[in-house]
């Protein structure tokens, strides 16, 4: 394709396959080797670039997605020969050791400061939690971002670099001839149907955070790809009477930025807060999460307790399915060929319900769930449980609901004894598997134990529905 975009402030037209990974385009074809690759699977952040000013992982983006966009790589951050204040701060605070994570860190921090000029240390730590640094232990990086005061004089420019930036770009030479797989980005639904008709075996994708990982591992090898990101109607979030409609292409970060979601659906917001990393939340979508239908998919348990349903549409019409009917097993959905997920419909939860989501993973960010619990509890006047919905993730082939446990809890008082009493039954009812992350016994035990947290969380939050999503992680007291 002829790709038109702006790279580091220069409008360019580049002859490149739409299927080429952005990181390869930048490094190999354009010589912009400041963008690093540490994993190729979204797990390290070394490949971070800015697309229209927002951080993106270039290993999980195809060149075709760059059409019309403004791309900034580390080479283009400083507009003059002087360092950008963040770069200067990284240097002054000793935040650079081997330097391989540095470009990604600096760009991630640029994005953060752009949105939030004075973040505190825990906000900074959260913002860079999708960027692995193996050398520094992060402290000096956090220092550098905290004190990246715009007014401090930048330190002296580097001793003449081996090649100047301009020369580097001109050295560019496409070295690869790609087995070309067409990639389409329809801009209207009609165009989408025509493309699907013409390429019935094409694979859909949206954020690509699952699909590009599978392509790299050659787990899938579709003849064509159709990206849904430019379909405006998949991006809307709207309250419609007694429900909220979320377009399938809405990213997790967009959801978290929307007060309708954080105020009305805290249980979903809490889950999204802990999904992947900031980059993954930027790129990944709710539709992709549902269609991937992983037992560990973090939006599934909250959407289940919220009684969400999905709106599926094809050239022939549309239908609405409950979440249970939509997801039939690990990685399998009721989606038919030619059909897409258009939106998720979430009925408004009872106004004073208590929302809670907890995920147990092997670390505090970039953690695939080992067990998770979403809970939605309504209290009666006397403080007993009027209604309770519980959904577990990662302890069965798909979301686990236990109606008999919910029934047993109704009418009981909201204290630890109540939940402790149902633990054995929960144990019995769960059927997790063992995998490389955890054994089945552990999963079962932890999944049940998570219930014991509920009384504590309930007492901590007198007005849970107002709880800003941002404090959720903190209140979990994970360091």
């Amino acid at each position, binding site marked *: 394709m002829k790709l038109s975009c702006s790279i580091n402030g220069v409008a360019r037209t580049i002859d490149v396959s739409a299927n080429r990974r952005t990181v390869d385009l930048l*490094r*190999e074809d354009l010589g912009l080797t400041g*963008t*690093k690759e*540490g994993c*190729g*699977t979204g*797990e390290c952040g070394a490949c971070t670039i800015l697309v229209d000013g927002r951080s993106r992982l270039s290993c999980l983006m195809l060149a075709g997605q760059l059409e019309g966009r403004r791309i900034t790589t*580390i*080479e283009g*951050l*400083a507009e003059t020969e002087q*360092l950008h204040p963040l770069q200067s701060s*990284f240097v002054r605070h*000793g935040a650079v*050791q*081997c*330097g*391989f994570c540095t*470009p990604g860190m600096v760009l991630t921090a640029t994005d953060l400061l752009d949105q939030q000029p004075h973040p505190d240390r825990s906000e900074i*730590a959260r913002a860079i*939690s*999708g960027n*692995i*640094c*193996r*050398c*520094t*232990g*992060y*402290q*000096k990086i956090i220092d550098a971002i905290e004190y990246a005061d715009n007014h401090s004089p930048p*330190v*002296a*420019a580097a001793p003449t*670099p*081996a090649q100047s*930036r301009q020369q580097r770009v001109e050295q560019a*030479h496409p*070295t*690869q001839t790609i*087995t070309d797989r067409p990639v389409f980005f329809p801009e209207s639904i009609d165009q989408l149907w025509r493309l699907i008709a013409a390429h019935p075996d094409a694979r859909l994708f949206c954020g690509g955070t699952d699909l590009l990982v599978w392509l790299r591992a050659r787990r899938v090898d579709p003849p064509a790809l159709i990206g849904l990101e430019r379909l405006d109607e998949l991006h809307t979030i709207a309250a419609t009477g007694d429900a909220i409609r979320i377009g399938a292409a809405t990213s997790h970060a967009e959801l978290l930025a929307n007060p309708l979601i954080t105020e009305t659906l805290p249980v979903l917001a809490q889950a999204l807060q802990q999904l992947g*990393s900031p980059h993954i939340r930027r790129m990944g979508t709710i539709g992709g999460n549902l269609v991937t239908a992983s037992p560990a998919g973090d939006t599934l348990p909250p959407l289940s307790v919220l009684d969400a349903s999905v709106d599926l549409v094809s050239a022939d019409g549309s239908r609405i399915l409950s979440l249970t009917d939509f997801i039939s097993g690990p990685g399998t959905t009721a989606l038919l060929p030619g059909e897409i997920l258009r939106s998720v419909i979430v009925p408004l939860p009872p106004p004073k319900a208590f929302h809670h989501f907890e995920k*147990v993973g092997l*670390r*505090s*960010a970039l953690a695939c769930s080992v067990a998770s619990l979403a809970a939605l509890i309504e209290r009666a006047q006397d403080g007993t449980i009027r209604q309770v919905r519980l959904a577990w993730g990662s302890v069965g082939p798909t979301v686990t609901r236990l109606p008999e446990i919910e029934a047993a809890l109704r009418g009981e008082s909201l204290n630890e004894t109540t939940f402790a009493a149902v633990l054995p039954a929960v144990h019995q009812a769960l059927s997790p598997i063992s995998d*490389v*992350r*955890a*054994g089945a016994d*552990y999963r079962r035990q*932890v999944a049940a*134990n*998570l219930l*014991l*947290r509920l009384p*504590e969380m309930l007492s901590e939050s007198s007005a849970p529905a107002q709880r800003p999503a941002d404090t959720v992680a903190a209140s979990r*007291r*994970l360091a």
Partner: protein
Amino acid sequence: MTDNDRTVAIGESMIRPDALTKVRGEERFAVDHYPSGLLWAGVKRAGIPHGHLLSVVTDEAAKIPGVCAVLTAADINGTNRQGVIRKDQPVLVDERIRHCGDPVALVVAETQEILAVALEQIRFEVEPLEPVFDPCAALRSDAPLLHPDHPDGNALFTAHITVGAGENGFADCAEMVEGEFDLPRQAHAFLETENGWARADNDGRVEITVSTQTPFRDRSEVAEALGLSVDRVRIIAPYCGGAFGGKDGITVQSLLALAALHCPGRPVKMWWRREESFLAGVKRHPARLLYRLGADRSGTLAALSVEAWFDTGPYDHLGGVVAALGIEHAGGPYRIPHVDLKTRAVYTNNPVSGAFRGFGVPQVAAAMESMMDLLARRLQLCPLELRRRNALVRGDHCPAGSTRQGSIGLTACLDRLATHPLWTTREQWRAAAGPHRSHGTGIAAVAHGMGYGPLVPDTATAAIELLPDGRFSVQAGVVDMGQGNAATYLQMAADILNQPPDRLLLILPDTDRTFPCGSSSASRTTFTYANALIPAARKLRELLLARASEMMLVQDHREMLLVPGAVRHLPSGRDIELARLGSLLSRDERFVSHHYRAPAARETPSDNSNLRLHGFPHLIFSHAVHLARVEVDELTGRVSVAAYLSISDCGRIINPVVFSGQQEGAVAQGIGYALCEDVLVDRGQIRTADLATYILPTSLDVPPLETLAVSLSEHDGPFGLKGAGEIGIDAPAPALANAVEDACSIRLTRFPLTAERVLGALTERNNPRRS
């Protein structure tokens, strides 16, 4: 004087010059080279843990358009063996496959896509052999042998050290504690995976640019393995995107050279994907350790017995040396009169183990420092008090029997800890735990020896030159893998020459342009090189002052002083520009080199010459005491680190920011080692071969780290420094295990302390009958 003319002094946090290029994305790592006409090389790996390789079928792959070469062991003219002490690792498997990552064939192709297709087309025939995965099982007489030619079977290296009455020392002990420990296989997980590129000219000389810690040793290894004379090989070693020991030794070098020699004139690149890095790269040695520690009632240590097994995988790599350093440190930094230490590095069909920051010490420190807390509990003594009572001081015999002659700041570290708020408020911390949580505090004390030991010469040759333009160039043949040693060299030279750092250029390691300086490892990098550089810089200073005084017709060159950019005659205030001096002098007159050999222990506490060859004993030790504050979530078993403190004795601090950066980075890696990092291997197959399943700490998993130093000066150290790169990783595992026991009375001896293990132990604690 402009800001740029500011000079730096020792002890100041000088800005690292490499940070300036790295932060702009302009520093070119090995992986950043894509010369035009590039070919891609890749390796077909065995996929099975043990077998005879009968044949390799390459025809199908070779026929694919765009495939330039398909090579096997038959194409190698040299020894086809690599290794540091025992050369037992083939470049390409000739006869026997010994682990799943063993390379069977090498393919060179025009593009990465063609390469991938071609690799899939390669077939090979094997006769499977019985594999062995457990190091103890591998030592049994009926175990299958990995190297039938090795006289000691699967026992790559064994050593036995007895001090005092050895085992008999336990007879008089009033108290004794025992423990059995398992330490995991840790991956370096540097962000820049193993890679390089090479080009051979038509005369068969090959240039390899590679991410390595050991350019000069690589040169000899490549030459020998491929049957080239050493002058046919040039290694260029840019800054590494992380290494930590994982690039100490050959990764892609020989394969690249072989590929390049078969495609002369064309640049050939090899870049292991993350998964291949897990499969074929080295890891920290998993270890099993049996400990017994005895003391009298007052808590004076009396006897220690240690049995250690280090799983070296199928090749030596540096397994023997790791086992030797481990056993030398097995008794920690304490006085123990009666000691019996047994260590072995054992061949297995697991992935290859190799050098990793800490080099055998994190394993034994995890055990020994856990034992100290076990003993303290038994004696109802404060853990800090027990350590103080037994801390080594200068002139003591260490547990392995050698005399500690260098500076020892251990007691100073312990004293500093005793008054630190994180220690004095530990009861408040314990009481602050919320529901279903418990809080605890743990400490650990460690020593870490520096250098290669008594036999292998620990040397470096530094060179420094005044350039015709008035700047200086410092040639350092030792790699900076990110730790900042290169900047430290410039800082020292800048201090001696009284120049601002940007008037100094660093020449990075290149076997054609710099002198051999040994490896970037063993906490010796800065110590040894700087000891060569300082005299060189001083000599050059004297030389320039003398020449300048002659040119200015001054009698006494002591009236002259180097100032930024010039030599100044003090009585008259007249300057002669360095650029003028540089252009007037011939290169021989403005170039100085100096060779240094680090002092080595003269003592021979063991008559085992093989143990000496493997580095025992060391002479100079750094020390540290660490403290960890944890919270244990009793519902999930998750351990989170709330605060962390390290207090170190690494001699004088040259650059405080570089120093604390080393400690912080090592502690973060140590937290990973203690809590979550483990390369899981099932019958030789790695199950955690990517960064989704191999769990590295993120910014949210590392707590605020406080880094303190007790700044003693080490007599032999350049400007008084000692090694600082490794010691920070020795103490986190035991400090955390001790903190977990302090929090919730469970003692875990199998690392990492995963939530699953912690919850299991908590369940047992609550239902003791089940155990």
